[in-house]
C-alpha cells in the first residue's frame, strides 16, 4: 500500500491506499469527505462530480494512484468563505429536492461557468447532460446556471 499525496480543498493530504482504489472511496471512506456521492460507481450518473485541476471529473472512476501533487476540489471546498455564487444561485432558484445529485450538479456547473461565462441553452445541455437528477430538477438547474452566470459577471463573490 502506497502513500498518495495530493491537494484536497486547498490542503495537502497524504493517504495510505492501494493505487487502484478509486478516489471516491478514498474521499468518503478514508478521509471522511462525504459531499461527493455514490450514484453508480461507473461514471454514468455524475453524483460524485468534483474538480481535478479545475476541471470537472468523476472520482468514482479515477484511481487514487497518479494523483500525486494534483489538486482536487469537492463540494466542501467550494466557496471557502460563504457560498460560491453558483451555490447562491442554487439556493435562490430553490433547485434541490432530495439533494443527492446536487453536489455533483453544482460542481459540473462551476466547471462549465469557468470555461464559458455566458453559456447558451445548448452549452448547458452539452455540459450538464451526464449528470442525472432522479427528482427531475433540470428546469431549475438551468435557471440557476443562468443566474449564477449573471452573478459571476457582476463580480459577486467569485469563490
Amino acid at each position, binding site marked *: 500500500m502506497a502513500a498518495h499525496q495530493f491537494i484536497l480543498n486547498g490542503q495537502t493530504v497524504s493517504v495510505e491506499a492501494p493505487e487502484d482504489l478509486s478516489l471516491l*472511496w478514498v474521499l468518503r*471512506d478514508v478521509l471522511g469527505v462525504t459531499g461527493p456521492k*455514490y450514484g453508480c460507481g461507473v461514471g*454514468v450518473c455524475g453524483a460524485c462530480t468534483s474538480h481535478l485541476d479545475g476541471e470537472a471529473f468523476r472520482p468514482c472512476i479515477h484511481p487514487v494512484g497518479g494523483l500525486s501533487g494534483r489538486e482536487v476540489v469537492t463540494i466542501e471546498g467550494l466557496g471557502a468563505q460563504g457560498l460560491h455564487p453558483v451555490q447562491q444561485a442554487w439556493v435562490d432558484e430553490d433547485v*434541490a429536492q*432530495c439533494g*443527492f445529485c446536487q453536489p455533483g450538479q453544482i460542481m459540473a456547473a462551476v466547471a462549465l461557468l469557468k470555461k464559458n461565462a455566458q453559456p447558451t441553452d445548448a452549452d448547458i445541455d452539452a455540459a450538464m447532460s451526464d449528470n442525472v437528477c432522479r427528482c427531475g430538477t433540470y428546469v431549475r438547474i438551468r435557471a440557476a446556471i443562468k443566474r449564477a452566470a449573471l452573478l459571476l459577471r457582476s463580480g459577486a463573490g467569485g469563490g
Partner: protein
Amino acid sequence: MADTLEPDATVSEGLDRRRFLTWVMASPTLMIAARLGLDVPEAEAAEPPEGATTALSLYLAVQTDGRVVTTLPRTEMGQGITTAVAMLVAEELDTALDQVDVRSAGADARWAIQLTGLSSTMRFLTGPLRAAAAEARARLVTAAALRWRVLAHTLATSHGVVSAPDGRRAGYGELAEDAARVLLPAVSSQPRPVSRFKLVGQPTGRIDARDIVTGATRYALDLDIPEALPTVVARPPTLRGTVQFVDDASARTMPGVVAVVPLGTGVAVVARTFGQALAARAALRITWTPGPASALSDADIRTRLRDGIGPRPLPPLFTTRTIEGRFDFPYLAHATMETQSCLARVQAGQAEVWLGAQDPKYAQREVARALGWELTPWRVTVHTIRAGGGFGRRFFTEAAVEAALVSRAIGRPVKLMWSRDDDMRHGHFRPASHHRILAYLGPGGRVLGWHHRAAIPTVELPHGFGDALTALAGEVLPKVTSAVFFALSQKLPYGFGWVSQELRDVAIPIPTASFRSVFTSQVGVSNEVFVDELARELQVDPVALRRERLTSNRLKAVLDKVATEGQWGRSLPPGVAQGVAVLEEWDSAIAHLVEVDVTGGTPRVLRIVIAADVGLPINPKGIEAQLQGAAVDAMSTTLSAGVHIDAGAVREGSFADYRWMRMKHVPSDIQVHLVRSDDRVGGVGELGYPSAAAALTNAIARARGSMPTRFPILDEGV
C-alpha cells in the same frame, strides 16, 4: 378517489375537515402534542385524551434558546415537507421560519400513522400542526401575562417575541419554561383564519437548501458512526435467486477485506472501504439457484397479462359500436438517486439502524424478525434519516435487514450499500400491466359506457397503508389488498354512462412495490389516452370533449387554465402537436398541456404547462418543484425508461441503460399555475405524474397520427 376518501363535508376553518386534540407533554420547557381526533366526540376535544401517550400525530417543543423543534412521524425524501411544516409552525406561532427545526421521528408505536406516502403528509398534519403551534403561542402569551401581571389579551406576538403595550418584551426562549407550567391559556388557542396568513401561501425556499448546496446534508452512509465498516452484498443474477455454493477463498485474501458473511439473499463482503468491498465481491465465486421467475421473460409476462384480461363483457343496451384500446406498461425501477443503504449496529441484544425509511415501524418489525426478536421488537431502534429519493421504494427495507444481520455476525457496526446495479436489478418494481379499455357508443355518438380491465401483477402494498388509508377515509377499512386499494383509488371523472373498472390480479413471482401514484400510473394514464382516442372517433376536439363530459368543476377549471395558458389549438408546424390530460386525486385536481415535436424521430418535448388545484397551497414554490419533478418522471417512463426481464433477470443495470431524462431532453420551461377552489389541503407528491404521462402520449398521438399503446414509447426492445 376524492369521492371515497372524503370523510365528511363539514369544513372547519375552511382548512381541515377533521378534529384534532392538543395537550401539554411533561417536559422542562413547553412541549405540545397533537393528534387527529377522529374517534373523539367534539365535547371532549378540549381535554387531554386518556392515555395521551398513544396515537400521537406530532409534537413540538419550544427550547430555551427560542428555537422550535417539531418532531414528525414522516420522512423528508425531497418532497419538501420539512419546509411546509416549518412554515405552518412559524405562521401560527408567530416566529421566524429559521427558528423552526423539523425532525423525523424514529420508529415508535406511539405514532398513530408513521408512513410517508399516499401524498398524505400535509393533508394529515396541517390541522394538528396548526393546532399545536396555536396552543403553544397561547401558552407563551399567558406565561408572559402572568410574569408581567397584565391581561393576556393586551399582549402581542411577532418574530418569536411577546410584547406588552408598555414596551416590555420577552423572547419565546425566556418564556419556554414558565409556559410549560401554564394550566390554562388565557387567550384563544384557536389557529388563525387562513385569510390572515402572512407566510403560508408565499413561495418559500427550502429550509434545507443551504445544507444541500454545501454538501453538509447527511444521508445514511454519510453519518459518522465510529468504526462502521463498508459492506456490499453479492446478489444473484436472477430475481430472488439463492446461494447454492460459495467459494470465497480468493475474496478473503484481497486487500482491505474484513469478513465474508453469507446471507439468504446473497453473500456480504465487509471491507475497509467500499472500493475494496466491491472488488472482493467481484472475486467471489458463487453458484446460484435461479429465482422463481427464471422461466419468465418480457414476452411471457405480456402473454400472461393479456391472458388475464379475459373475454369482453356484454355491451350495454343500444350499443351500436364498441371501440377498444389495449395498453402495455413495463416494470419500472424506482431508481432513487441514493441507492438502498443502511447503517446498523447490533450488539448486546440491542439493534440500532439508521435508515431513510418511508415506513420506520415496518423497518423495525422486519429487522426484529430477521434477528429472531419478533416478540421484543422494541430492542430495535430505527433512526429515520433523510433519504435521497423515495417514490415508494423505501417502504421496503431489505438493506436494513441485511445490515443488521451482518453487524450481528461480525459484532461490529456496518454501513451497507446497494450498488447501482443491485438497486436496478433487485428489490421491488412498479409492476408491468396490460389494459383493455372498451368505450361503447350508441346512436348519434352517445357514449353509453366505459369498461376498463387491468391485468396487473399483485402490488405488494406497504404494511402501514391500511392504517393510513383508514385515517384518510375516516372509517375502518377491510384489509387493504390490491383489490381494495384499486377500488378506492380508481375513479373515472367523466359522465360516460355505465362505467366499470376492474383489476385482475395476476400472480407473477417478481417483487413489486407501489410507485408514484400507484395504480393511477397505469390505469389513470391509459384512461386519459383513450379519452383522446374517443375524441378522434367522435371527431371532436379533445379539450371540448373533456369540457363537456367531465363531472368535476375543479377539473374543468384546471383544464381551462392550461388551455388558455398553453394556447390550446394554436397553429403549429407539421410534426408538432399539443396534448392534454387531467386527473383528480388526493383531494387535488390537475391538468397538463404538453407540446411535442416528432419530426426528429425521437419525440422532443418542447413545453409543458400545468395547472393544479391543491386547495390551500402551503408553499407554492415547493408545489411547483414537485409538479416539475413529476413531469420529468412521467417523461422518462413514458418515453424511454423501462425495465426488461430476461429469464427472470432485470436487464438494466444503471442510468446508462435505464434511460432517465437528462438536461438535454427536458424543456427549459415547465410552467405551473395554481388554481385555488377552496382552502382544503390537497396532496401533491404523486399528483403530477399521471396526467403528465397521458398528455405527452396524447401529444405524440396527435403529432404522429397514431396512438402509442406500448410504454416506454421509444422501447426498441422485444
